């Protein structure tokens, strides 16, 4: 058989880090947070996997997954409607023994039978709080070459303030690494607050499938919860864990402020190209018509999706699909999600509107660059 596919299956954890950004996940998961004008967070890692030939992908969901299921459907837009493999969404309570999980160990324990029955040699695991155009083939190749049991992906950066501030809450553990010259991980730190550039774990992992099954079966019996904390970190002497450095573009969602900033960063062409040029990012298709600029519309430094009607002035902003900006309205430094309505003459600055928010005519709303104002889904102002 021609081997055009990667010898790996993918597992995503759509609810990881939900608690970092409570505003946006009241009705959704981290994975289905809208990002970059027409995407959801899950699109990036899902498309990256598909573009690398990983076409057997499971999402182990925990809560608020309706919007995610609605977004993914049968997975056609990501070319994941396959007879073998394809898209597999695992809800809690899918089996008698399966409950709402806490860490990765419990999540993986709920799909052990599935993992045993698959054919791929490797398993690639990832969270969805990062938008990146990631080359999983390079990761898998490095993993094979190094002969490691587990390969951990990291970026070199300072630990984001949002991570340090959130630390302590169960779901928001983060890790940093120390490695030897050969790239083998010698230490793994939990919720470090050290300053300066660190090897900051991206929560993308490759592991041999057979090994993962063994690790999870044992850990589950012992009541372990977290894969990194309870399985990898204590056993670095026995287990061969390698680090893989990623130096591509990363948009990491840590809190509402970083959500705003990461959206805004895409207004820089260099960033936009870095995120979208390496390989296509797929998303759900809405069949919107092209965006229309009518009358006295003005636009400067904006990223705008299809289906919008712009009759007012927009500047330094990200507009998702189907946004309407009324006559004389002014929108500056804003992130406007799908189908937001900005009334005539309204004036808004540093505002994040969730889906289907409507701002009345003539209303004035101002957040600050350090604290963008957030308006929840379907609210009318």
């Amino acid at each position: 058989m021609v081997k055009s596919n990667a010898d790996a299956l993918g597992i995503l954890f759509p609810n990881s880090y939900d608690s970092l950004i409570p505003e946006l996940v009241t009705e959704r998961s981290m994975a289905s947070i809208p990002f970059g004008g027409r995407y959801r967070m899950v699109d990036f890692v899902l498309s990256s996997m598909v573009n690398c030939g990983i076409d057997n992908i499971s999402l182990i969901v925990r809560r608020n997954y309706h919007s995610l299921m609605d977004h993914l459907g049968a997975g056609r837009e990501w070319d994941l409607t396959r007879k073998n493999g394809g898209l597999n969404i695992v809800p809690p309570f899918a089996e008698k023994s399966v409950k709402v999980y806490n860490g990765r160990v419990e999540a993986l324990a709920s799909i052990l039978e599935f993992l045993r029955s698959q054919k791929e040699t490797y398993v690639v695991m990832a969270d969805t709080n990062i938008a990146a155009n990631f080359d999983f083939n390079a990761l898998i190749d490095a993993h094979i070459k190094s002969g490691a049991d587990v390969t951990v992906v990291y970026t070199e950066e300072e630990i984001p303030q949002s991570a340090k501030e959130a630390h302590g809450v169960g779901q928001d553990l983060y890790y940093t690494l120390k490695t030897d010259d050969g790239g083998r991980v010698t230490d793994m730190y939990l919720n470090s607050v050290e300053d300066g550039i660190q090897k900051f774990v991206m929560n993308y992992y490759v592991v041999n499938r057979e090994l993962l099954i063994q690790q999870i079966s044992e850990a589950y019996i012992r009541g372990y919860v977290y894969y990194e904390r309870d399985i990898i970190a204590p056993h670095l002497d026995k287990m061969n864990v390698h680090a893989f450095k990623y130096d591509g573009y990363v948009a990491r969602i840590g809190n509402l402020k970083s959500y705003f900033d990461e959206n805004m960063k895409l207004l820089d062409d260099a960033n936009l190209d870095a995120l979208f040029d390496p390989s296509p990012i797929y998303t759900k298709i809405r069949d919107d018509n092209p965006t229309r600029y009518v009358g006295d519309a003005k636009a400067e430094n904006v990223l705008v999706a299809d289906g919008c009607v712009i009759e007012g002035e927009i500047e330094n902003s990200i507009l998702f699909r189907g946004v309407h900006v009324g006559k004389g309205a002014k929108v500056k430094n804003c992130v406007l999600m799908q189908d937001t309505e900005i009334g005539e003459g309204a004036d808004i600055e540093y505002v994040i509107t969730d889906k289907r928010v409507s701002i009345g005519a003539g209303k004035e709303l101002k957040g600050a660059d350090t604290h963008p104002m957030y308006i929840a889904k379907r609210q009318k102002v």
Partner: protein
Amino acid sequence: MAKEMIAMLLAGGQGSRLYALTQNLAKPAVPFGGKYRIIDFPLSNCVNSGIDTVGILTQYQPLVLNEYIGNGQPWDLDRLHGGVHVLPPYQQASGSDWYKGTANAIYQNISFIQRYDPKYVIILSGDQICKQDYSEFLKFHKEKNAEFSVAVMEVPWEEAPRFGLMVADEDDRITEFQEKPKNPKSNLASMGIYIFNWDILKKYLEEDEADPASENDFGGNIIPNLLRDNRRMYAYHFSGYWKDVGTISSLWEANMEVLDPEHSGINLFDDDWKVYSRNSGMTGHKVGKGGKIENSMITDGCRINGTVKHSILFAGVKVEEGAEVEDAVVMGGSIIHSGAVVKHCIVAENVEIGQNAVVGAMPADGEKGVATVGSGVSIGDGAKIGPNAMVKTNVKGGEEQW
């Protein structure tokens, strides 16, 4: 399982009057309205009208069209039973032949239609921009207990001689058909959209095929034969937006009309009657710091750093700093380099227009030419393309073409 009505879409037209735009693709595949192709209109009409089985008859340059249609999924036409089928001419035990005329194209696919055992067949044309509810048309056909119905538009009397005209009585029953007459007796122009009872259509197709003198054309042969036999033929009045985009100027005009839905009547922004298309998959469009957009339609993947006025830009068009685009239709993937001026023209897909080049001009002195640049053409820096030019090959820097 029998279908009540299936559609047969004539998409084999060469569209020779679109010149540079149809060098490599059939007319129905010509891009339109920012993210559509002409064929999206009849296909979306079918789906929105509840027709789930469509045969697309192709002949001229079918590659782009075939790829575009694919399995029909963007139009929700990937069905277990029915769906969309591309039907090129094929070899049969009795021999093979190109489609000799519109009627012959359907005749050669009688066995396709027979598989669905429909009561009615609607014949559509793949080169019109029109949003029409075919279920209303069928309702009319049934109410009149017709054997054949044709959709007609009232046209101004002075333009009537350009059309095939239906002369009908007060009950809309057709009494006479005039093909481009000097002295029109009616101003009801045929839109080339017909509903037939399948048994009648089959009978007349077979009869027509047996006649060696026939040109195998619906307008020229089938309709006159139906009239001769005094069949129950009715004219269905349609009053919405309809445009045959068979020429460069009508294509340009129809695109411009999309920009003004309030007056032109062609509204692509109607959520209750969506026009579906295959998606570019590009990210949102970006307007840079020096970008300026007025009364235009911009779609995914565009990067605007110059000035765009009253224009339609398709997916992935780049307008660099200092470039000016006005009254223009710029198709997917084209790049307009800095300082270039692009006006009152159609620029096809993947064209590159060099720095400070000039393409087309705003109408002056009664001149209304629409400059046209064919797909993949590269226009060199500083080159000049006149308002009536039809460019099919590369133009070197500094050269002029009129």
